[in-house]
């Protein structure tokens, strides 16, 4: 993208100084609307149980699923609740999926004295051949067997199954369907090339300096200091930068104060303090030149449960002075230049990765879109706020760009839906390991990775 336009003047700067140097104006923010209101929490009360969020989820998604069921299996299909099931009758049931997993870490087992178990070390995947699927609705639950891929599905998904009840009380599934893509949003995209840069996993404070130069190069490219004139004019068309989580590295999470004696740790500062200062400086450089949205991630100083609230502005005193800095929630939704962006910092996808046989982050991302829910595992294995009347993670509008941060590598795909939806799925890799960011072109919904490198002690390959 950059290169075609920039190529003609590529060598332009290998010349004696010219009289004047050109500056380019950044493309103005034409239309930006922050739609992540449902993810902001006001007064929080944790005295509720999580059953409410499941109930809200089921109630909200039931009509959508019934509609899909009728589309798929005909208008005359019998939609039954579990309590109305009769043996042998072919019908369709809508409910919440529960996967009984043997290896799932359970706090009750850990503290139970009769088992005397040592806490299980975290495994990459918790699936096991003996896992079972159970469908629950408001009143009852029933075991599922048949044409369902047990390993692939995760707890908390709402879906519809078509089949019949067996004599032994299990439900034999012949077919199933998900909510599918939600209704499409009208296209109001820009008429010329506009770019949005997606970066995640900056990993500051990790103590290793390899990615620091790459980060500086990234900032320089975006602010227009790097590159010849052609490249700079292209960079001027980056209308926004979204930092999708994990701005601090995992190393800042260790808390010596727990393990060491107090007199040893009295004067030590948390590692995250230095890291946040560095972050502030980097953000300041970016903010003077481009609007930035900062999403918190798994290792960032904000709450652990989803939806993560924005970082507090007093942590970033230098950068907060600029109105181009926006601190936003973790599942983030916004209209940028008419294109709807929706994305997370990756916790939902990595959680599904742990409890499902799906290995590809892009595949999981696509699956969550088809299931109509951002993070089905939310209250079960991923921390979540106990919502009461509504579940803000249900996808109601189809985004144009759907991303997740902190993926192992960069992947992107343009998904076409039945109703004409076009969604660009992007898995943004962690910058600290791959030194790669993503450039999304809003004009034609394409995405290009952009990678940076310095030179190390050893030669390049």
């Amino acid at each position, binding site marked *: 993208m950059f*290169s075609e336009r920039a190529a003609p003047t590529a060598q332009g700067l290998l010349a004696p100084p010219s009289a004047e140097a050109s500056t380019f104006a950044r493309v103005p923010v034409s239309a930006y609307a922050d739609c992540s209101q449902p993810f902001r929490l006001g007064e929080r009360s944790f005295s509720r149980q999580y059953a409410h969020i499941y109930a809200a989820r089921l109630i909200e998604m039931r009509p959508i699923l019934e509609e899909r069921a009728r589309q798929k299996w005909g208008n005359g299909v019998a939609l039954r609740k579990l309590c109305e099931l009769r043996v042998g009758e072919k019908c369709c049931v809508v409910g919440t999926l529960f996967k009984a997993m043997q290896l799932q870490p359970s706090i009750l087992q850990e503290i139970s004295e009769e088992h005397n178990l040592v806490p299980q070390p975290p495994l990459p995947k918790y699936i096991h051949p003996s896992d079972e699927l159970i469908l629950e609705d408001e009143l009852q639950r029933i075991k599922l067997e048949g044409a369902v891929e047990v390993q692939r599905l995760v707890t908390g998904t709402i879906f519809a199954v078509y089949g019949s009840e067996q004599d032994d009380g299990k439900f034999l599934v012949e077919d199933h369907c998900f909510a599918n893509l939600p209704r499409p949003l009208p296209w109001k995209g820009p008429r010329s090339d506009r770019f949005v840069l997606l970066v995640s996993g900056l990993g500051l404070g990790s103590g290793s300096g390899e990615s620091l130069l790459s980060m500086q190069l990234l900032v320089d490219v975006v*602010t227009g200091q790097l590159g010849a004139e052609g490249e700079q004019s292209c960079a*001027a068309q980056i209308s926004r930068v979204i930092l999708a989580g994990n701005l601090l590295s995992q190393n800042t999470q260790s808390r010596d104060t727990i393990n060491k004696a107090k007199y040893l740790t009295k004067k030590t500062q948390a590692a995250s303090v230095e890291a946040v200062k560095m972050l502030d400086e980097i953000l300041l450089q970016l903010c003077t030149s481009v609007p930035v949205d900062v999403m918190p991630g798994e290792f960032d100083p904000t709450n652990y449960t989803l939806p993560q609230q924005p970082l507090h502005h007093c942590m970033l005193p230098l950068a907060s002075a600029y109105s181009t800095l926006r601190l936003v929630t973790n599942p983030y939704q916004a209209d940028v230049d008419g294109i709807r962006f929706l994305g997370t910092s990756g916790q939902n996808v990595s959680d599904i990765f742990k409890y499902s046989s799906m290995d590809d982050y892009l595949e999981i991302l696509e699956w969550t879109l088809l299931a109509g829910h951002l993070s089905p595992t939310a209250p079960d294995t991923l921390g979540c706020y106990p919502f009461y009347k509504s579940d803000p993670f249900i996808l109601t509008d189809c985004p144009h760009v759907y991303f997740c941060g902190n993926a192992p590598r960069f992947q992107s795909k343009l998904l076409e839906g039945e109703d004409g939806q076009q969604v660009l799925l992007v898995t943004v890799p962690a910058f600290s390991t791959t030194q790669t960011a993503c450039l999304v072109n809003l004009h034609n919904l394409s995405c*290009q990775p952009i990678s940076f490198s310095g030179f190390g002690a050893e030669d390049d390959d």
Partner: protein
Amino acid sequence: VTYKWLSYTLGVHVNQAKQMLYDYVERKRKENSGAQLHVTYLVAGDLIQNGHVCHKVAVVREDKLEAMKSKLATIASVHVYSIQKALLKDSGPLYNTDYDIVKTNLHNCSKFSAIQCAAAVPRTSAEVSQAQTSLQACSQTQSDMNTVSVPVVNGHGPSTAKQSSQQPKGIMGMFAAKAASKPQDTNKETKPEAKEAPGVSAVSSKPPAKGNIMNNFFGKAAMNKLKVNSVPEQPKEEKEVVKPSVPVAEPESSPNTVVEKPGKKTESARIQQKDKKSKMKRVDKSDNEEERDLENLKKKRKRIKQLQSDSSDEEDVPPSPTPEEEKAPSPPPVPALKTELEPASTEVSAGGRKRKRKRVLKSKMFIDEEEGCM
């Protein structure tokens, strides 16, 4: 020397800096002088990787330049990144130079850049404080709704577990709440409430007036005094209205016990009315007030002792229920006042008999005066 360092040091556009570096290299090389210069270049372009096009930006040494250029399918830009006398082992020094120079120029780091963003205007301090107060107002209005519109409780830091900076907001919020009902009293109410807030903030273990046990002691005493005094002040409306306007309050036949005290109070009230939202000033005033209270207390103590010698001990007992009764008919703030008063009184009494006596005496004296007036 990197291009960025040159650009900041000479105050030129980054592109010009890059060109200057190139020019320098060329000239030096042509001169063929002995010194060897090592140049690093920045190369950017498209690279076909894993089947899709990847844009790559890399800093490379001169010897690797051609190799990198050949790897890239299309080259977007090439320019000189930096020049060194010695061969660089890794990119550490490059990063460090850039980091240092940027750090010293943090606030105009985009001045020499090729892209200027019109939207990147620093927020004025008014906007910043507005953003902060809007945050605080949101949380404060929530706490307003939680607590049953008891202005005193709002003003109390510990009960809502908010920072003491909430107290000015609480006072303003209470202002707004009561403005409709009692327009005249707002003036007077800021005074006692404002006083209470710093008093409370001193009592609670919040930072502003902390540190000194003495301070706390007098803070508690001040708070008691304030509370006790604020109660009769509320029923005595007209006199209170008159009070702020009169600079020195001697001629007023107010129920307040100490003559100096109302004067001081009006002064500080006036001062406090003047500042709008500055917590700092309030804290300062509370400090001053406490110092003045200290002096007052000293004076008062002497007077109390004299009075004590006159009155009998029986009077200790009846006055204490009467203050309670007195307070009961007062407007709603009182029950909360009392609850705050009780813990304070228990704390005070735990401190020593002397303090307890002082408190009871204070109220007693004040009732005597009142009865005398009536």
